[in-house]
């Protein structure tokens, strides 16, 4: 992979033009803490924790938005608190996530450029998770303009979460989508029917172990006609910027 003719030729041919675009170090100065909550959201989080007590498993600020993971049996209660106490009257979305890494495509040693290679070890997002599946939702207040993200773990054997339909009417479609895409059922949902997919569809497409079918039928052209990724230059070209 290191002896890629294309990139080296380019860089010798026209060094100045190439190095301006390939400059590597982007240690751009970050603001002190991009995740810090402003006063409003910090209070919001305190109020939520006060109402829910030990049903809040973990919280973590993410780019100014509080991310709160609640216990399974308090998922609907969390929505009620968000709507009635925190005045988050607006339901932005409900969705799910599968934290299990997707199986690697192609052979171990093949230079597979068909899709980005994700790390193979399991890691969880903000506020953690204790299993493979999670449901997460975002609610907002139209009057106060604040919002927060709520998460709940889904038991892999039961695959059941509490439905939000009694709290937010709009949860209906979001939960139907989540049900067909991840196979997560919602307790209290009026009718879990297929939303996007045909009713005879089998499987749950957004699970990580569900392959992208079009690539099973026909391999990605990139697998056959491998074009090497351009290598990062060895030395950060610090003087090259001035030559422009």
């Amino acid at each position, binding site marked *: 992979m290191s002896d890629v003719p294309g990139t080296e030729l380019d860089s010798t041919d026209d060094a100045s033009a190439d190095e301006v*675009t*390939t*400059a*590597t170090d*982007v240690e*751009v100065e*970050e603001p002190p803490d*991009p995740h810090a909550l402003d006063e409003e959201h910090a209070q919001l989080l305190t109020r939520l924790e006060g109402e829910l007590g030990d049903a809040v498993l973990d919280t973590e600020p*993410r*780019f*100014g*938005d509080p*991310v709160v993971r609640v216990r399974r049996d308090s998922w609907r209660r969390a929505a009620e608190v968000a709507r009635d106490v925190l005045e988050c*009257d*607006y*339901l*932005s*979305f409900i*969705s799910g*996530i*599968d934290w299990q890494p*997707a199986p690697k495509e192609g052979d171990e040693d093949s230079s597979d450029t*068909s*899709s*980005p*290679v*994700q*790390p193979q070890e399991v*890691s969880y*997002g*903000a506020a953690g998770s204790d299993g493979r599946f999670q449901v*997460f939702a*975002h609610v907002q207040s*139209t*009057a106060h*303009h604040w919002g927060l*993200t709520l998460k709940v773990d889904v038991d892999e054997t039961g695959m059941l979460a509490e439905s939000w339909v009694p709290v*937010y*009417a*709009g949860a*209906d*479609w979001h939960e139907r989508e989540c049900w067909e*895409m991840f196979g997560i059922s919602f307790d209290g949902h009026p009718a879990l029917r*297929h*939303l*996007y*997919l*045909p009713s005879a569809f089998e499987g749950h*497409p*957004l699970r990580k172990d*569900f392959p*992208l079918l079009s*690539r099973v039928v026909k391999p990605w052209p990139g697998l056959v006609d491998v074009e090497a*990724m*351009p290598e*990062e230059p060895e030395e950060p070209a610090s003087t090259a910027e001035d030559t422009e």
Partner: protein
Amino acid sequence: MNRPPRVSEAEQSRASTGERVSAVGASPTATSEPMMEVDPRLYRHLADAQVNVELDTGDMILNLGPQHPATHGTLRLVVRLDGERVISADPIIGYMHRGYEKLTEFRTYPQITTLINRIDWLSSFANEVPFIDAAEQLMGILAPPRAQYIRTILTELSRIATFLLFLGEMGLQVGALTPAFYGFRDREHILNLIEAATGGRFHPNFNRIGGLKDDLPWGWVNDTRTAMKTVFDACDTFEDLVAGNEIFEARTRSIGIIPAELGAAYGVSGSNLRASGVDWDLRRDGKPYLAYPEIDFRVWTHPDGDSFARYWVRLQETREAARMVLQLLDQLPSGPIMTKVPLIIKVPQGEIWVETENPLGQMGYYVFSKGATGPFRVKIRSASFSNVSILPWLLRGVFVPDVITILGSLYFILGDIDR
């Protein structure tokens, strides 16, 4: 150049006082019946219900679509009718489901912008902005001011293009053919500008992580100023020709009223929610993004929440967007349009929710990254999906022609529903 909005005075005073209007033509009979307190707007519905009871009309299932012209694509509505009245309506979506959330897991960040261009294809540029913003924030980089301004201008131009089409097409939905031609004609000016700047009329794919692909071409700023005049004129035309039309009012007033609280619970956003009197616009009220904090603009609301209010609010927002473009052009800073980014874009581990005020409403991406060249998962929150999810509630009890009015006034794009 910054001329004040040309708003019909009656409508504006009502917008500021929050007074509701009753259906056109129903008020004269309101006082002649002292026996029962009934909202005058319901009189004609009552009369029809009476006929249904006397004649014992049975139910009928009507399939609207998936190819009905009023559905902007392939939305199918299964409507249960009793005579001319809708008993229940069930939207069947998914005819255009392309599985973008799955596809994003197989693409790199720069490749994904090609996909998300095709979510809401009338305002493709505006779709790119929140995703690029999410990637930039996760990487801790910031596009230069000039890039931010150009992004804002192009977002507003997309808004104008989308709304001009709506303003014309809404007339078509209720039976007036002429406005549709005006809408398409005037949108052409905006599409030409977008094409001149980005190279693409519908799918610009112009945003890059860290800035923009190109700077603006020569003469573009002046061309845009000229085109904004056309937009103001077009808005005046639509205000006279459509919004001020008695028949149009009769067809849209008090049709499809969305109560503010219910709309919010369903996730209805953007102009649709502002037409229900909710003063909430992410450009002003959300986390600061693009150049919006630096310009001065008004957020328009209307108290009625009916189809007419949705038309009226979009009409004002078109004008407001044109004024914003002029302001942005005046303040346009010079400088680079691209910040330094690595050749291979890897986004550090993390997750972020970014939302923007798109022409159709709140558009957002929840991006989970694990440090690879592509995202681990992207949740695409598209506006039309939630806007349309209120239809089963909204269509209950309306007449068949009003179904079309409501569908038209909600203004959805099928790609934005199905993703």
